[in-house]
């Protein structure tokens, strides 16, 4: 039911936003990628809204979502085909190179996931930690308790934790769930850029655009680290692709909805959405188009405001400023002070390579 709700809501959103019929394979592929990305976002955002309004959602939430999506599909069924564009085809060698690059990135994703089974720091420290709170605990307030470690960032929006928590509820609490969702968003990031550029400029440029994403050395690592930056990039890319090719206000509203999902993914999504809106006005002077964009973003902006004002603790930085004066040296029992000193005297290490060995040996005394 969850997957049906996800797919139908995504297809319904795309049908409502893009009223003409897809004319070729590239356009159909682009819309399919949009439907999956927006459907996943709508599925996760509706989970959050339902959870904040009524408590833990059962099947009813997914039934409502699936029915709404099906209704939108039916309502916007009669559509005229979009005029076909003469597009530059891609040479075969470029297709082969693109396929090889995707295979290399997929292999790197698998290798990194096996090496770091809980994902990167952000994954277990923020997103999957929150997903565990959501899936395991009935009390929503404990998931966003101000007593929690500041590094768990309980004030962050929760599109990704919402998706993972629902995955846990459906498939059981396995490390495969967040890894699969990370793989999905990684694949969507490549697909949206490739197909988005291809529908505007032809398959040759689309493949080059896709290559630019999939061969970024950090891309496969970020995806397998299960970082929310990848879903955020997907929603930002969808919004940008729709805005640059929009033929109607409904497409701009769909772009706004995608930007709104970016807002519900990470705090900086608000900044990115604002930048897109400002860029639109700067470029086109079309205030009505900007209003359509803002209207599309409104549901997720309202969800974010509801969360921030009603449930989220103060942001990390505000909490920290309040708490800081009394605690320059943390009281941690035996060994704490010598560690604290040695840490500040020693070299700092990167996040992923931080090892305790140098600390451990300097902490033997108290």
């Amino acid at each position, binding site marked *: 039911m969850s997957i049906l709700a996800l797919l139908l809501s995504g297809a319904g959103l795309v049908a409502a936003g893009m009223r003409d019929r897809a004319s070729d394979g590239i356009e159909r592929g682009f819309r399919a990628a949009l439907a999956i990305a927006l459907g996943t976002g709508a599925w996760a955002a509706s989970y959050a809204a339902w959870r904040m309004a009524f408590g833990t959602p059962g099947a009813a939430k997914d039934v409502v979502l699936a029915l709404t999506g099906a209704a939108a599909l039916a309502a916007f069924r009669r559509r005229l085909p979009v005029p076909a564009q003469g597009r530059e085809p891609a040479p075969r060698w470029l297709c082969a190179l693109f396929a090889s690059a995707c295979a290399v990135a997929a292999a790197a994703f698998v290798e990194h996931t096996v090496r770091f089974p809980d994902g990167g720091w952000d994954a277990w420290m923020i997103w999957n930690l929150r997903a565990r709170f959501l899936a395991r605990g009935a009390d929503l307030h404990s998931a966003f308790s101000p007593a929690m470690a500041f590094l768990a960032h309980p004030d962050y929006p929760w599109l990704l934790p919402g998706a993972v928590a629902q995955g846990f509820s459906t498939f059981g609490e396995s490390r495969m769930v967040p890894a699969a969702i990370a793989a999905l968003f990684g694949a969507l990031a490549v697909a949206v850029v490739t197909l988005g550029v291809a529908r505007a400029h032809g398959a040759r440029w689309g493949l080059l655009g896709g290559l630019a994403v999939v061969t970024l050395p950090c891309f496969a690592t970020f995806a397998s680290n299960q970082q929310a930056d990848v879903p955020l990039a997907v929603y930002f890319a969808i919004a940008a692709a729709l805005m640059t090719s929009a033929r109607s206000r409904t497409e701009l509203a769909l772009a706004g909805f995608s930007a709104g999902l970016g807002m519900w993914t990470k705090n900086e999504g608000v900044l990115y959405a604002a930048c897109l809106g400002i860029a639109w006005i700067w470029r086109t002077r079309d205030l009505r188009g900007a209003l359509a964009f803002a209207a599309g973003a409104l549901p997720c902006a309202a969800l974010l405001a509801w969360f921030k004002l009603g449930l989220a603790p103060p942001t990390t930085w505000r909490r920290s400023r309040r708490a800081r004066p009394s605690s320059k040296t943390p009281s941690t029992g035996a*060994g*704490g002070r010598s560690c604290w000193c040695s840490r500040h005297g020693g070299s700092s290490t990167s996040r992923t390579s931080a090892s305790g060995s140098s*600390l451990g040996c300097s*902490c033997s005394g108290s």
Partner: protein
Amino acid sequence: MNRRVTALMVALAAIGMLRILWLHFVSEPRNEPRRAPIDVRYAALRAVVSSGEAGYVSDLPAAVHSGEDVTTLGTRMYLHVQFAVAPVVLRYDDARAPLVIVNLHDPSRLPDLMKQRGLELVAQIAAGLAVARPR
């Protein structure tokens, strides 16, 4: 112009692919040991501490405010326990909570630390990992 741009992008893509292959299949296997899942050490805590809040004490300090070094082992140990015992909220350095999780880098220091913090043992979960309560 188009051909030049294509050639440049393809060259950059080839460099990127080689960089990915080097990092993931040569460098990381040599230099980055495979991590054990966090739950391997900590999952058994859930049987003893299953809801509400619990205290957390350790022999290594953790970063509890922004601006502090977050890359330390103490911070990692603290957050690993929080990840494992969710939805229990851990209260850092609180030895007066009804249940306190003691997580040590050096297991031999458990008796000293328990005495120093006024704790008595409830359950020993693993070497250097225990659940205690205030005496």
